[in-house]
């Protein structure tokens, strides 16, 4: 029986030696490190900027937690500030940190290296993408300093309140927020076109689609989702800006504000919710799919086993991507929509659990009887599986209309989405940084500090979010500065709040250790060599570490196998890099260490 390797055989195979002219060679320091067109530098720029704003969002979360645990103790937090912190924290974390880091950061670094390309196909556009992103970030940060401060409308920015007098930041903050989002989307689209076209067209010889590491599949599919979903946010941002500045009535109904009838008439706030969640739900998967992909690779490498069910994993990624577009209204069960819609969206929401569960089973089955190395990246990957499963299960609760109605807008929801889309992907971000840092800098991160960071973060997040589910059951609402004058919330809830805040501060402090580790290891870390984890994928096979401009020296690698040839029987080493031809595989048998 013939083996079918790929349908690409008849297709085009790019030449191995690529002419020098195709790459843009920087000559000055500025050209090399600032206005760089090299995807690896752009990746680092994206990463550093994203982590920078992420730190702001982290500090905001401490302030919120302090307020919740010790109400009335901090004179600089008033109710408006609190709402502003909530909104900026949420928006920064979701869009400016996670999306930018996964796609702009890891996407830029890993796509060309992993598919065996010299760079992205449009390096100049790629560079622009970063600068537009930076501009969007600056606009966002600027909104802290304008009169009235940043918007306090929540990260969902629902009109009419987002632009009505009385909501914090309703005059300046919201405009800056919307304009910043619009720029973010433009910048992302530039980058996204690059990622997609590079994966489609710049793979090296032999790198068929079905041999790509799952990391690339995850990033690729997430980029497609983002390219199609972000326009929804763009549309709603534009229409809201028009409502605000020109007085149109796309979203604004006839409304009386502060005793004054406004000139708006007949707009539909629900329309905004549809548009927003049409973006908002896929957004969850925009940060989850790259995490899925990366985790698959971390597990395979550090358990020295091929990934279980590679094709199923690819199909699951695609299925999740497709389904994620038809579940958006599960965020709108309380908006008074037609009950049949609720039924439809509950069904689709539950269906999406199927491909997701397949992925989880496959990760676990990959670990099963693997040669598990509990390195720091592996710890984070396993931590991800736990956290994601727990967050996913509460998602199944909330997907049902009858369960969601009482829990909507309570701390239960906050606990759910932090587990599934905040902590879980962040754990992958950390795991990925520990895994690829040696390639990026040529040095290992400090292992002890890494393990410390992992255990505090992992256990700490549970200490934060587990109790929060109970608060939600008791009916503690989200986005509340302080809950007073009710008798359905017992005093014990308050002690719980204090405990959560202490856990949050401890977790926050652990991140400082991580940042210190990043900086310290850059100068003093143990040299890593080119392939410290004995991994098979192409980024570990570069002639130099960190890889130089052009990635692969004179000749591009030729790929002969998938990225998961670990522990192949009858072979001397327990891994075979993708670019080793069958004739050069040393035979023998590897001994388990």
């Amino acid at each position: 029986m013939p083996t079918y390797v790929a349908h690409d055989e008849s297709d085009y195979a790019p030449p191995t030696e690529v002419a020098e002219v195709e790459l843009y060679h920087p000559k000055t320091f500025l050209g090399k490190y600032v206005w760089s067109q090299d995807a690896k530098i752009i990746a680092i720029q994206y990463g550093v900027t994203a982590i920078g704003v992420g730190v702001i969002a982290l500090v905001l979360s401490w302030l919120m937690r302090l307020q919740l645990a010790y109400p009335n103790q901090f004179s600089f937090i008033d109710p408006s500030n609190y709402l502003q912190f909530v909104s900026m924290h949420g928006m920064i974390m979701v869009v400016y940190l996670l999306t930018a880091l996964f796609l702009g950061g890891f996407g830029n670094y890993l796509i060309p290296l992993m598919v065996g390309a010299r760079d992205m196909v449009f390096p100049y556009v790629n560079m622009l993408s970063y600068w537009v992103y930076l501009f969007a970030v600056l606009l966002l940060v600027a909104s802290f300093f304008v009169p009235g401060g940043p918007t306090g409308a929540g990260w969902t920015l629902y009109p009419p309140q987002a632009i009505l007098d009385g909501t914090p930041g309703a005059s300046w903050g919201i405009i800056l927020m919307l304009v910043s989002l619009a720029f973010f989307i433009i910048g992302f689209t530039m980058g996204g076109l690059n990622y997609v076209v590079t994966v489609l067209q710049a793979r090296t010889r032999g790198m068929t689609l079905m041999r790509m590491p799952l990391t690339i599949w995850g990033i690729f599919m997430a980029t497609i989702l983002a390219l199609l979903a972000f326009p929804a946010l763009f549309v709603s941002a534009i229409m809201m800006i028009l409502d605000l500045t020109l007085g149109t009535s796309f979203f604004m109904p006839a409304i009386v504000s502060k005793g004054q009838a406004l000139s708006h008439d007949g707009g539909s706030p629900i329309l905004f919710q549809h548009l927003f969640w049409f973006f908002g739900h896929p957004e969850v998967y925009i940060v989850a799919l790259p995490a899925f992909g990366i985790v698959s690779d971390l597990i395979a490498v550090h358990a020295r086993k091929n990934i279980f069910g590679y094709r199923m994993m690819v199909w699951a990624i695609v299925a999740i991507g497709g389904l994620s577009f038809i579940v958006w209204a599960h965020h709108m069960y309380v908006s008074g929509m037609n009950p049949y819609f609720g039924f439809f969206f509950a069904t689709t929401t539950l269906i999406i659990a199927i491909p997701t569960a397949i992925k989880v089973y496959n990760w676990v089955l990959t670990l099963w009887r693997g040669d598990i190395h509990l390195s720091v990246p592996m710890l984070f990957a396993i931590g991800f599986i736990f956290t994601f499963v727990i967050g996913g299960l509460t998602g199944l609760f909330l997907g049902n209309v009858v369960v969601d109605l009482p829990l909507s807008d309570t701390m239960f929801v906050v606990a759910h989405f932090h587990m599934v889309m905040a902590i879980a992907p962040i754990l992958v971000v950390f795991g990925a940084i520990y895994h690829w840092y040696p390639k990026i800098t040529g040095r290992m991160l400090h292992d002890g500090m890494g393990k410390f960071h992992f255990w505090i973060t992992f256990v700490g997040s549970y200490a934060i979010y587990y109790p929060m589910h109970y608060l939600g059951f008791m009916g503690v609402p989200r986005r509340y500065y302080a809950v007073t004058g009710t008798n359905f919330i017992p005093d014990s809830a308050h002690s719980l709040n204090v405990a959560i805040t202490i856990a949050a501060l401890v977790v926050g402090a652990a991140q400082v250790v991580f940042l210190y580790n990043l900086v310290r290891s850059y100068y003093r870390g143990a040299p890593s060599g080119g392939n410290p984890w004995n991994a098979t994928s192409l980024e570990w096979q570069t002639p130099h570490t960190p890889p130089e401009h052009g990635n692969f020296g004179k000749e591009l690698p030729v790929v002969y196998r998938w990225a998961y040839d670990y522990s192949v029987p009858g072979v001397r080493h327990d891994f075979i890099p993708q670019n080793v031809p069958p004739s050069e595989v040393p035979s023998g048998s590897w001994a388990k260490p």
Partner: protein
Amino acid sequence: MTITLLFLAGLMGVVVWWLLRESTRVQPWAVQGPVPDVHTATLPRHAAKTALIVFLAVATSLFALFISAYAMRIRLLDWSPLPQPRLLMVNTAVLVLASLAMEWTAFAARRGDQDRVRAGLAAAGLLTVAFVAGQLVVWSQLAGAGYFVATSAATGFFYLLTAVHGLHVLGGLVAWMRPYARARSGRDADAARLRLGVELCAIYWHFLLAVWIVLLAVLVSKDLGLSICSTAVPL
């Protein structure tokens, strides 16, 4: 949202078909011998063309969402209809001509006929500028009759949809300048790039024409039941 979903369903169909083709009967774990050498016969699509196609998918998503928003909003009953500017038909004709001119230019470029390419690009450019100018006249006519952006929901959407389309057309004109400059300079070395540039422009122009016809249909045509322009008060 139905409109957007239909578009996405189509797109997902393409992705699934493509993936089926790539993944069935493939054994990812199998090892392969050396890859055959370059087949010049099957050069891949130029990366710029792929990028344009992906971009068009993004733009389609954008327009589909705008139209979805419009269609959802129109179900609420407070529309006070707009007059139907007659000039819209003229503008449409101009845009059709611009698209045809682009196609003719692409044909000339494929045969390497530099003179015709230059003429064709100039004509297409002029026609496109005329279209944009015509749209601006429509706006000023509407404004003259007292229909401003914020006058009613209908005017809001009319201005919004035409503006978004117009901005895409202007973006096209910016891109158009490169092949045009290349055609003017007339250097032979540039011929391949010129051909590519013209081809990309032609694709983009046809796309914008298609989008415009859909927009026109939803804004003006009674048959879809979505129109907000009424012939009762012609302009």
